[in-house]
């Protein structure tokens, strides 16, 4: 077993990234069971909300919801409710219906029967939600992708699973979208978007969630960073307002979604951040670090 028998750490490939779960303070067998249950929760979110899997709720919605009301799992519905609310609060900046643009950029696959890529303005209120976890799209051309919010939701469900096992403290990190719980603070290092091998700062988190977004990089092929995967629904192009964003929020789902708004709106995102009781750190294109006043004490810049 692991050397520190009072803590374990595991990692599995899920949600298109590496999900790491660490827990402390229980007997080894109890921690293993808790971690297994937490990974199972993440795997369930993956199965329900993957754009790539043909039998996911998201794929079913993309095929059918423009034609007839479609019922989804309670978890999928919860994420859709949050996404629609976030869309409204951000005046359309957070938009799960940008999937067709992500397809043209090659970030999402296209499948047979997909409509031509739209060029006009985004359809307002494209997603309609009804009682009984039922969803309808306003047009058969609407395609959604939950890639900007589901990872955070998965982290929240994993934490919930760990807590059900009475785990005292832990961390769930889904490729940078992470939540920490328990008495002790955890130190999180944030990568420098210009030089991803190095941290630009570290942030202390106790009982909370943070999520980060930056320009993409691939340590498998090179250390060069490339364009952001966040698309501005206004221009249908990758956003270039800022280089990177990290958001702290009460839940990881909210933190995850808010990073997209901060990537697009930059320091103009304050109203939405305040509404969700969130703080943010962003790295502007000149490399300067901007931190909301309520959070700057917790952030330590790298020397």
């Amino acid at each position, binding site marked *: *077993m*692991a*050397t*520190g028998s009072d*803590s*374990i*750490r*595991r*990692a*599995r*490939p*899920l949600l*298109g*990234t*590496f999900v790491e779960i660490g827990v402390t303070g229980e007997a080894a067998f109890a921690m*293993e069971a808790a971690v297994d249950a937490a990974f199972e929760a993440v795997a369930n979110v993956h199965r329900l909300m993957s754009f790539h899997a043909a039998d996911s709720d998201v794929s079913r919605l993309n095929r059918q919801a423009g034609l007839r009301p479609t019922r989804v799992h309670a978890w999928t519905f919860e994420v859709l409710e949050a996404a629609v609310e976030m869309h409204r609060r951000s005046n359309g900046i957070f938009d799960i219906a940008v999937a067709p643009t992500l397809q043209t950029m090659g970030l999402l696959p296209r499948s047979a029967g997909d409509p031509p890529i739209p060029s006009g303005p985004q359809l307002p209120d494209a997603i309609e939600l009804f009682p009984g976890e039922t969803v309808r799209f306003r047009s058969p051309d609407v395609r959604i992708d939950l890639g900007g919010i589901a990872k955070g939701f998965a982290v929240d469900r994993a934490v919930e699973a760990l807590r059900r096992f009475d785990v005292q403290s832990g*961390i769930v*990190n889904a*490729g*940078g*979208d992470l939540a920490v719980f328990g008495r002790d603070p*955890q*130190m*999180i*290092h*944030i*990568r*420098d*978007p*210009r*030089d*991803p*091998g*190095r*941290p630009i700062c570290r942030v202390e988190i106790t009982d909370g969630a*943070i*999520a*980060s*977004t*930056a320009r*993409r990089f*691939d*340590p*498998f*092929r*090179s*250390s060069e*960073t490339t364009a952001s995967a966040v698309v501005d629904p206004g221009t249908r192009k990758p956003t270039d307002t800022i280089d*990177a964003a*990290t958001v702290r929020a009460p839940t990881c789902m909210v933190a995850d979604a808010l990073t997209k708004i901060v990537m697009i709106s930059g320091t103009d995102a*304050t109203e939405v951040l*305040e509404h969700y009781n969130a703080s943010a750190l962003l790295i502007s294109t*000149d*490399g*300067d*670090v*901007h*931190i*909301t*006043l309520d959070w700057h004490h917790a952030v330590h810049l790298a020397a």
Partner: protein
Amino acid sequence: MTKWVRYAAPAVAVASIASPAYAIQYLSIGEAQKQAFPSATQFTEVQAGRVWKAEAGGRGIGFFVFDRVVGKHLFIDYAVALSTSGVVQKVEILQYRESYGGEVNSPSWLSQFVGKASGSALRINSDIRNIAGATLSSTHLTEGVKRILAVYGNRLR
């Protein structure tokens, strides 16, 4: 109204003493085998250092395949547990290493990990346990799992 505090850009380091690295050992092969097949009483090597047959009371209950994906700055050891009918039961990461000072698979860089206990962050340069930023894609590992299934999925039954 929330205000923002602005800090001048920290200089991008030109050179440093040690290469920046982030690495962690999650499980040894032996630990991962027991995790994948808790009821197994024996693991018989089918292919040296790579494939093991898990047995319980003399009866085969599955296969354990060890593999590694290596990129320019990334090196991941992982294991796939297959059922006797060749279905993936579990994919577990054993060791994760990221380095930007040079090629990750150079022997001198790798030697610093020899003999490290599992469950511990390998403390190099600093003591980074949790890292966030741009999301890393796990595509290469997913392709590795597909390759394992293509090679062993039918053959091991």
